[in-house]
């Protein structure tokens, strides 16, 4: 990656240095174009992947991480008058309509998107004209196979099973107000039980001794009983892509799995940021993110599935990673309109 390396001036004259850096960075009109790609914190590609774009087009890419999907969109909305960059990647279906209604995107969807990707496209009016799907991942309850085999209890299958007393005290989830998989799981229950039913479901879940942690790392590392974790609860809200990472080197059996009837699908998108000085180049970068070069590189770096049907999955993924066939979903506009209300209601039930 060709990140321009600003040296950190380790002297007290940092202010003066800042001025010098600024003067040194004054753009020359005929210089090759550098695009700023604003992403969420989880963005990662193999070394050299973005270089291939530079080689092919002469355009350099600088990556700027800007928080989780929500923070990313809110930053774009706030800085609409002086955009943070040229291209954004990492807006998901739960925040897409805020980005659209905030007017932070240029209308553009990559022409390479085919009908096979129809399921990932946003509805028109909720981002369909602005955002190109790049990857998707399912947030599902993960299960520790070994634990259930030893305990002699059948594994749960559905959301309904989780409120069965058989599974009392076995599930750990992330809080919907501080964690994005936590919010996705809440959305799955809202999609499953409807606008008036999910509150009752959560009351039962709490009565069944669900454990609520602040973050994914907390739930997965401390409370989950899986092989790389220290905890004692065999059910955790995580991703459908987590099980392949628990397979030991050379292993043939995955010690954990995803309950595919409990999943909420998160799709991540890229778009051109409104107000960019380089719209033509920005569109090329969006196309590149959707091209097999990046798509093949996505699973092992970002732990999500590429949307492009031409992409080739890594071996471990092809063997151990599963996808929900009929995941829960909600209209992005409905999510954006109700997010605050749902989270407040959830907090009143789940964290009294």
């Amino acid at each position, binding site marked *: 990656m060709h990140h321009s390396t600003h040296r950190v001036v380790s002297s007290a004259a940092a202010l003066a240095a800042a001025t010098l850096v*600024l003067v040194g960075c004054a753009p020359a009109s005929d210089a090759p174009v550098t695009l700023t790609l604003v992403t969420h914190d989880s963005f990662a590609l193999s070394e050299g992947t973005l270089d291939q774009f530079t080689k092919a087009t002469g355009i350099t890419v600088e990556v700027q991480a800007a928080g989780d999907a929500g923070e990313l969109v*809110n930053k774009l909305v706030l800085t609409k008058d002086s955009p943070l960059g040229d291209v954004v990647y990492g807006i998901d279906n739960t925040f897409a309509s805020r980005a659209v209604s905030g007017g932070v995107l240029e209308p553009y969807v990559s022409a390479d998107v085919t009908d096979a990707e129809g399921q990932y496209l946003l509805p028109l009016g909720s981002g369909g004209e602005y955002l190109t799907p790049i990857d998707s991942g399912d947030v599902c309850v993960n299960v520790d196979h070994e634990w259930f085999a030893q305990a002699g209890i059948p594994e749960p299958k559905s959301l309904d099973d989780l409120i069965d007393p058989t599974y009392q005290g076995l599930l750990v989830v992330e809080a919907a107000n501080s964690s994005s998989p936590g919010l996705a799981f809440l959305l799955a229950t809202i999609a499953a039980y409807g606008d008036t039913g999910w509150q009752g479901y959560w009351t039962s879940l709490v009565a069944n001794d669900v454990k609520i942690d*602040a*973050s994914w790392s907390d739930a997965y590392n401390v409370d989950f009983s899986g092989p*790389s974790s220290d905890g004692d609860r065999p059910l955790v809200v995580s991703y459908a892509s987590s099980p392949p990472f628990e397979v030991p080197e050379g292993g043939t059996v995955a010690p954990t799995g995803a309950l595919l009837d409990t999943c909420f699908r998160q799709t991540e998108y890229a778009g051109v940021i409104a107000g960019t000085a380089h719209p033509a180049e920005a569109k090329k970068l969006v196309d590149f993110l959707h091209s097999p070069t990046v798509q093949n590189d996505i699973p092992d770096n970002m732990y999500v599935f590429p949307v492009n049907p031409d992409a080739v999955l890594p071996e471990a993924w092809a063997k151990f990673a599963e996808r929900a066939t009929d995941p829960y979903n909600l209209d992005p506009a409905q999510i954006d309109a109700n997010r605050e209300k749902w989270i407040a209601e959830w907090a009143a039930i789940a964290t009294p």
Partner: protein
Amino acid sequence: MRDNWRSSGLRERQLSRLNAHPATIAAWTLGIALPVAFVGVFFAWPVATILGRGLFPTGALDVAGIAEVLSRPRTIRIIGFTVGLAAAATAITLLLGMPAAYALSRLKFRGRGVLRAAVLVPFVLPTVVVGIAFRTLFRGTPLDGSVLAILLALVFFNIAVVVRTVGASWESLDPRQEEAARVLGAGPVRVFVTITLRRLGPSVAAAASIVFLFCSTAFGTVLVLGGARYSTIETEIWLLTTQFLDLRAASVLSITQLLVVVALLVVTARVRGRTTSQRRSFATRRPRRADVPAVFATSAVAVALVIPLGALVQRSLQVGDGWGFGNFLALASTGSRNALTISPWTALGNSLGFAAAATGIAMLLGLVTSVLLSRRPRSPSARRGLDLLDGALMLPLGVSAVTVGFGFLITLNAPPLDLRASPILVPIAQALVATPLVVRVLLPVLRSVGSRMREAAATLGAAPWRVILTIDLGVAARAALAATGLAFTVALGEFGATTFLSRPSNATLPVVIYRLIGLPGGDNAGMAIAASVVLAVLTVAVVALIERLRVDSAGAF
């Protein structure tokens, strides 16, 4: 006797002569301009702008909106909980930290140096790692997810502030007054309350105010240890700003934070303003029988530090089902399946570079400001001005990193200050947090330098800069070293603003640890813990090294 000196005609004449000197006036102006410009550009302007967006959405003050936010039962509850939690945590931290500060600054015993450095370790450990260490210890007990767990973690994080701030003063407190009182028949409690505590008042107040501010703006600790059950002003601002984009409510809460800071400063300024007796550095001595409670309390603090850190070390050596150094060896790589853009060692290099730059900025600003604030000009308005400057420097400690960070985005976005994408903002943001700490450590010591000494030097013909160099800095040399260590560790561990500003290619170690621990698979979590242990060991080493450089300031007189 000192009071006679203060009001004597000689002092008045000296000061007025000093004040009239044009070079002195120029130096004062420059000295004031530097911190004012720094805080103004990198704190006041961004924060005011983001608050303006929330409170003046249409150009006019949204009075009804503000009233609506303030009348929500949730808002009231959150404000009450935050203040109560911070007050309780501050009280416990002082109670445990004072004896430790005494033992570590006045007594001579084995392991003192290591312990002095070790209390700083929690500062540099990423909250997410400490949170996991504590939660692993608490799991299955009623402590897990309780307010008490949050309190314990807050004390763990902040004990260093008391030990370092109060210790720096205690170190140079003349023990002969206490000894005289003892000889005259006063009991140890009475001696402590009437003499020691009175003289330590300013630095105790300084430590308490810093701890209170850190506790009231704690973010990860509250979320992780409280199981997302408890909301504080800080976590609420994060939620409102980053997830809901409800700037109005976030601004109202930010204003509340500011008011809390101001109220705190008014209270502590009364204590801080009291001058203390003249001090210098005194030799440490072996513990005596009367020191048993202090030694006991210090041991308790040491144990409380060692247990969670020990749990981390143990976890870092766990590889699969066995033991080994695999997690440490992996630090040269970018993690299993390329979890990272850069290796943790590279990130450590970035961390050290940023922290060194931040320490440089913080020490420069802190020294200049402390020397200024230690002078008490005759004019009441000038004195009030200095007090304002003192308060303004403390504000960044009490205001949410999210507010400052979002403020950066909408202010530092056009030439000549288009810094949003510049890595220079990282050390600047770290210095904003470190500078007030430097001032709080240095100021009590500088204020205790008798004006008599400065006046004598001036009368003997020393130029003002020479007075500062030889007298102020001579006396404060030890405190300056303590402050450097504190600033460095605070900058090294700073996470809120750093994660907001750094880029994947120049990420710091805490940012890398955060990413590693957020990925599935055994190797990544193990690497994250190993990297935390490296950070902890490095902190102890760097701080111990800085303290080795100590100058024998007592010898100057």
